[in-house]
């Protein structure tokens, strides 16, 4: 392993016990161990957005696809954690954007790609258009012994998971062993990160409560267009950077308006994430990648 950082060092860096993460570690490459696998998380691509916060809006997603294709180690799978497209009130335009997005990401070398909606994709039509292109908005899958759960907290415009989906989640979890490694993908934070900017899920605490009996759970989400790490008990929640425009830190600006584009540092604040996962424990090592190498 090049520039290897062992598990103890990660734990020391993170200070979070069972879940580890490291950011901004250029040159770190991950070696595949017997129990490890690797996936990539992309989020908040907002295809269709136009405006000063990203003068390169029509090319950023394509550059991100090229960056993923250029990784030394190709992931087992890729996940997009919502807001694939920028919202529009026009249902025809919404489908056009979803179609264009789908065509662009079809250029990814890795063909196992998981999708979920964000509120920009799904909240104005309860996920109807999204489902036409990408299928179910909630589902599970298993990979090398890790159980993955995709939760939909955006098709309801009230940012609610809903009792029906919570019952579905409870039923699915009952089928898992208590020590099962579990990874949850969702768009909005399941905890109240900053409700003043709508950075929350109305009934997210109910999902966390259902997950709490399982000691090996990690949550990956998007929505806030920046890297963020938070613990609810033993459960780690990791937010990903976006791929169209970064947003301010919670409460550190008068509004949640996008941060301005800096011509001196184009794409600053944008990026995607590699996740090296221990298949026995779902312990995750995170590596943050820029859209374009500096």
């Amino acid at each position, binding site marked *: 392993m090049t520039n290897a950082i062992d598990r103890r060092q990660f734990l020391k860096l993170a200070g979070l016990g069972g879940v580890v993460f490291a950011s901004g570690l250029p040159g770190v490459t991950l070696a595949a161990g017997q129990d490890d696998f690797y996936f990539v998380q992309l989020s908040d691509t907002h295809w269709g957005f136009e405006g000063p916060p990203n003068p390169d809006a029509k090319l950023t997603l394509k550059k991100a696809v090229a960056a993923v294709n250029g990784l030394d180690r190709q992931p087992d799978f890729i996940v997009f954690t919502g807001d694939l497209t920028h*919202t*529009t*009130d026009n249902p025809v335009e919404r489908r056009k954007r979803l179609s264009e997005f789908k065509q662009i990401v079809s250029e990814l070398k890795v063909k196992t790609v998981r999708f979920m909606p964000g*509120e920009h994709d799904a*909240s*104005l039509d309860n996920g109807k258009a999204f489902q036409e292109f990408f299928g179910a908005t909630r589902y599970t899958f298993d990979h090398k012994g890790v159980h993955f759960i995709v939760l939909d907290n*955006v098709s309801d*415009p*009230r*940012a609610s998971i809903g009792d029906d989906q919570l019952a579905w989640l409870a039923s699915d979890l009952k089928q898992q062993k208590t020590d099962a490694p579990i990874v949850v993908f969702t768009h909005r934070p399941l905890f109240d990160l900053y*409700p*003043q*900017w*709508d950075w929350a899920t*109305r009934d997210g605490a109910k999902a966390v409560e259902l997950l709490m009996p399982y000691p090996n759970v990690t949550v990956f989400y998007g929505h806030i267009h920046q890297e963020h790490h938070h613990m609810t008990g033993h459960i780690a929640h990791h937010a990903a950077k976006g791929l169209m425009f970064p947003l301010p830190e919670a409460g550190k600006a008068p*509004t*949640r*308006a996008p941060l301005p584009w800096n011509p001196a540092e184009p794409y600053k604040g944008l990026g995607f994430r590699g996740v090296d996962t221990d298949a026995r424990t779902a312990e995750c090592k995170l590596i943050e990648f820029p859209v374009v190498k500096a």
Partner: protein
Amino acid sequence: MTSNRKAFATVMMSAVLALSGFAVYVAAQSAEPKEKVIRISAKKFNYTPGEVQLKKGVPVILEFKTMDVVMGFNLPDFNVRADMVPGKTTRLRLVPDKTGTFVFLCDVFCGTGHEEMNGKLVVSD
């Protein structure tokens, strides 16, 4: 309060209110409120008025109407929220227990301008 009015109040509370804490009290309002009524209307994608001035400890009734689509009113710092449904009037009774400037926002995704749909509550002594 008649039994009908009690029932109405109970339903309203369970339907539209979320509250916690000790100093803030929010309750459904009877048909003839005694407190000052602050009327707030919503339409894509703003509230009118966009800024509400209140006095700490002085109870008010916030009365909401939406002019077009379903909206939300969320005042996280006081842990209160309400759904705003076209054709219906929603009321909250609020006793501000702290001073400052607080954001209220629409928490029901309502369209392209949803993320800019917010206002300010200013509470003074």
